[in-house]
């Protein structure tokens, strides 16, 4: 598991990245984070939804109820224009941060 603080700091970046190209619902997001990180990062209900609502409140993502035939309705989140700008900025910062860490600690990308 990743350090709590680090996870908290990076969570927004993860969510924003995942909804960058297509709208996704909460369960889908948690599955994607779990599988793409090979289980290193996990978001459960208690941590995921407050984060989603927070991002929504800030206007970075937007949730919308979608009903499909034969299914219960689900709430899908997509990136807003504002969110797109934030995502770009956070990506830039994150890269700097990782590079800085790398230079100091000698940890390199594989």
């Amino acid at each position, binding site marked *: 598991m990743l350090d709590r603080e680090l996870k908290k700091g990076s969570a*927004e970046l993860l969510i924003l990245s995942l909804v960058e190209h297509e709208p996704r619902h909460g369960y889908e997001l948690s599955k994607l984070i779990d599988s793409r990180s090979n289980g290193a990062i996990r978001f459960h209900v208690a941590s995921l*939804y407050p984060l989603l609502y927070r991002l929504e409140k800030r*206007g970075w993502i937007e949730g919308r109820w979608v009903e499909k035939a034969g299914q219960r309705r689900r709430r899908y989140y997509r990136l807003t224009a504002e969110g797109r*700008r934030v995502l770009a900025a956070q990506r830039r910062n994150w890269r700097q941060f990782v590079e800085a860490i790398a230079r100091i600690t000698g940890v390199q990308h594989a």
Partner: protein
Amino acid sequence: MRDAHSEASSHDWRAQIAERLTSLRLAPAEEADLADELSQHLEDRFRELRIRGMSDQDARRVVLEELDGDGSLASTLRDVVRRGSVPATLETPARGSALGQLRQDARYAVRTMQRSLGFTAVVVLTLALGIGAATTIFSVVNGVLLTPLPYRDPQQLVVFYGTSPEKQLAEVSFPSGLFVAVREKSRAFASMAAFDQPGYTLTGRGDPVRIDAATVSEDFFRIFGTAPIMGRTFVATEYRPDNITVSVISYGLWQRMFGGDPKILGRVIKLNGSPSTIVGVMPREFAMPERTDVWLPLALDPAAFGCWCLDMVGRMKPGITADQAKRDLIATVDAFTLSRHDIFPGAKPEDHAKIIVMPLVKRIAGDIRTPLLVLIAAVGVVLLIACANIANLLLARATARNREMAVRCCLGASPGRIATQLLTESAMLAGTGAALGLVFAAVALKLLRQLPEGQIPRIDHVKLDPIVVLFAVGVTVACALLFGLAPAVRAARVDLQTSLKDGSRGSSSGGARRVSNAFVVVQFALSLVLLAGSGLLLKSFHRLLSVDPGFRAENVLMARLQTPYPRYDNPQMVRSFYDRVLERVAALPGVRSVGLTQMAPFTRGNRQENVIAEGQEPKPGEQVVVSNNRTITPGFFDAMGTPILKGRSFRASDGPGAPRVAIVDERFARHHWPNGEALGKRISPQGDTSAGHWRTIIGIVPNMRHSSLGEDPSLQVYESFAQQTAWATYMIVRSTREPRSLVSAIRAQVAAVDPEIPLYGVRTMEEAVSQSLLTRRLTNGLLAAFATAAFLLAAIGIYGVISIGVAGRMREFGVRIALGAKPGNVLQLVLKEGVWLAGAGIALGLLGAVWVVRFLRSLLFGVSAFDVPTFVAATIVLAFVALVACLIPARRATRVAPAVVLRE
């Protein structure tokens, strides 16, 4: 089957969720949406776990565990689902509302403060005391000096009087004739009026009481632009000599004595036994002169030059300055004295009148003005030092928080946001401190009101009014900026690489060190100024307390008496009254001796006369020597505990028919007969050299301080009460027990002789002396407290800076020791830095102190403003404090184990 199961469990999920959300009290629609979304998620997760082969029961347990996470679901959601609330992290949107941002910062600040309670407590308490003290003193400054007087265009109101330094007379009142001439000729004044302040005994309403009255000339009320709230003031025909048939009373007297009776006009009171009709009531805020209860008309006689006893007040014409008014008055008085050789035979064209024109507001503030200004400056300095300390603490903490800031930066917080966040923290600290400080100030003001009346003029205006609160807010903002700006600017300039490298080591960067060092130097400089100033005042006070007042104050009671004229219209009647009173009081158990004097020491006012010594009569144009002049009864010196140095005291036999006698003090004797014997010489205490006015000196006593221990001692002449009778006296009683316990017995004896004569102004001599020192005592106490606070804060400041320096250089010290440095070398290295900082501060402080002490000069007694021992002592104290503060971290440096720090 599976569907049925999932339907059932789905309902269950909603219930589980709803139960956890009740504390949020959401709107039904919102809660339904939330439950919909979350229960969907839980259901999906449940199915996933079941598919992976988990048992129904296990899957359910896992899902519910995940639902609860680390804390309660409600608390993690509270921040985000509540309307209007904004999440509490730094990485807010670029376009977040300013208010929301502020609230977020504030909430974050509260959490930061809660995390380090000790630090917060120290900072808040320091600020609370500092801001509280500043606010208290400012409220006094505001009430006494800044609040405009409650009169029309108060800036045009001045008092003026003559002054005669060569006669040791700070203030010389005018005679009626001179005032009338000046009023006619002066061009600078729109109007002016004269007044005198006699006391009267008011009878006819219960017990007889003494009241402060003022006789006022025409225009007096008009000058202030104040109309009576009831009735009228005086009309022209009422300004006749000694006319007390009409009176205007104060709001206070109206309330106190007449219960605010609306039918007060036309009522008759008795003043010294004569009837006087109340024709008007002045409003509450009209207090000219202060504490006046009854105003009476004063007739001016252009031919009267006998009594130099009128005080004057004037309204300058618009656009005229006090300086112009002064030049105008001098020219007017000069022209008059030159034109009246019959009255001023010594007047010469090259001599000029010495006149002081003082704004009324400054006059009312009186002696308290300088101490107040000194104190407010001192408290400002202490606050400044405290702010520097807090800034250093925050800087050190900012260093420790470098990583936090770096991480925030990485996550998208702009430098501006971080700086704002830190400033918000500072503002919250300052705000909390200020709130507490205002509570302190309110308590302190309550205590100030308990001071004896008259210690602080205009005390009614001293309160936490909007201006004072505004001041407190201003000070708070200034403080927050002062101690918050440096850390905020530094944090905003955070450099990712250095922070992450540096931060791991916990030392601070060069820039921060330089700022901290500068703070320490300034702290030491300011502390030295305060210490030196406070030292000078304390030394003055010590000198004052060791002054011999010329009497022994313990077990002495004084009280005032006045035989009312015209009921007592001749000296025999007056003497007979006092003789009987003295006889009765002397017989009381517990009374050791009793005497009368016209003017007791340490009371308001004085009586001075031109006194001429036989054979030393002044030539025309020469200054006559002025002496304090009192008439006393034989028991006076005994009651005061004053020894007779030579000759004898008065006796009962020194009566009206006996040869005229006088007693003088040592200074008088030495002044007139520096090498000879004063006993047996003759003087004329009223400046009248015609036959029959000469008195023979029969005794010499020590000089008695009259109004304060610190005064320039004046020459003193005493006459026999039996030969020079006074209507108004102070009775001085020396007792064998607590003097206050005798008051009612003495009062009864006076009433037994004449029930219409009140005993008033009762005080013990010790109270009178200590009250004369009260302002000084308060000033000294506060200043000493401020100085102590200042150098303690400076000590903490230098300790902190050296400690942080040492912590950052542990590796270096390790290397040095590994390479053979002795602990002594390391100690020296650290101390050198401390010595340099403290030394620079002290040097700067000495320069500052030399410049500042000039403002203290009027408060000093028996000490030069440049008293070297005081400055040396202040320097030593500070240097010692600095050394101790540096020694602690320096010793830490010497105990470095090289193997440990080098491996770290």
